[in-house]
C-alpha cells in the first residue's frame, strides 16, 4: 500500500495526460491524499493552459526593424536564377529540336 502510494505520487505529473491504470488507479481511487494531489495537478494544468490566451505586446519597432533588415537582393537573385533556368531550359529544348531535325535529314 505504501509502495503504491509512493509510486502514484511520483507518477502524478504524467496523469494529467494519461489516466492511471491497474493497481495505481485502484490505489488513487481509494486514497484521499492521492485524489487531492491529482486535483492539484489538474488545477495546475488548467492554469498553465490558460496562458495560451495571454499575448505579450512586442516592442513598437519590431515591424520597422524587420522590414529594414530584409535581405532584398535575395528574392531578386532568386528571380534571376529562375529566369536564367527558364532561359537555359528554352535553349536546351531548341537545341534538342535542331538536333532531331538534323538527325532526320541525315536519315533521309
Amino acid at each position, binding site marked *: 500500500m505504501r509502495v503504491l502510494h509512493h509510486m502514484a505520487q511520483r507518477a*502524478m*505529473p*504524467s496523469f*494529467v495526460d494519461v489516466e492511471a491504470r491497474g493497481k495505481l488507479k485502484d490505489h488513487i481511487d481509494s486514497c484521499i491524499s492521492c485524489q*487531492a494531489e491529482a*486535483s*492539484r*495537478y489538474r*488545477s*495546475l*494544468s488548467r*492554469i*498553465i*493552459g*490558460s*496562458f*495560451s490566451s*495571454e*499575448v*505579450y*505586446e*512586442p*516592442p513598437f519597432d*519590431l*515591424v520597422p*526593424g*524587420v*522590414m529594414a*533588415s*530584409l*535581405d*532584398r537582393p*535575395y*528574392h*531578386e537573385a*532568386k*528571380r534571376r536564377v529562375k529566369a536564367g533556368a527558364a532561359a537555359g531550359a528554352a535553349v536546351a529544348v531548341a537545341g534538342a529540336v535542331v538536333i532531331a531535325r538534323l538527325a532526320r535529314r541525315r536519315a533521309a
Partner: protein
Amino acid sequence: MSNDMTLRGVEPSGEEELVRRARLGDEQAFSALVRGHQNDVFTLANRLLGNRDLAADVAQESFIRAWKAMPNFRGDAKFSTWMHRITVNTSWTWRERANRKATYTLDDEFDIADEHQLTPELAGERAELRSLIGAHMAALPTSLRAVIVLKDVYGWSHQEVADELGITVSAAKVRLHRARARLRRVLGEKS
C-alpha cells in the same frame, strides 16, 4: 498543433493571398504578415526564453528567416504553424548563442537560482496564484520551460515537441514531468 494562431483582422483567404504575394517577393504583403503575426511570434519567443529583450531579437530574426525561406514555403502547413516552428528554432539558436556569452546566461544554474528567489511568500503578496505560476514558469530552466510551454500552453504533441527541440520523445516526457512537478510546488497544499 491544436493551438491556432490566425492573422488578426485578415480573413484566411486574405492571408493566403498575402503569403502568395510574399513568396514572389512582395514586401508590402510580407509586412502585413509580420504585423499580423508579431504578437504571437513575440509571445512564443518570450515564453520560451523568459527574457523580453532576447524575445524581441528572436522575433525579428524569425521574421527575417521567414522572408528568406518564403520562396520555399509550400503552404502545406498554415503560415502561423510555419512561423511557430521558425520561432522555436530561432529561440534555440539564440539560447545557445546567449549561453556562450557572459552577458546572458540562460543555463540551468542561473534559472534555478532565479527560481529560488521567487518564494511563494514574497510573490504571493503581490500576485495571484496564476501570476505566481507564470513567474515560476518563466524562471524554470530553459530546457524544461520550452517543453511545458509547447506541450501545455500551445498543445503540441510529445512528438512535435521532441522533433522541434531535437530530443527524444522520452526526454520530452521526462522534462515535462519535471517541469510540472516543480510548478506543482508553487501550489503548496492548495487545490
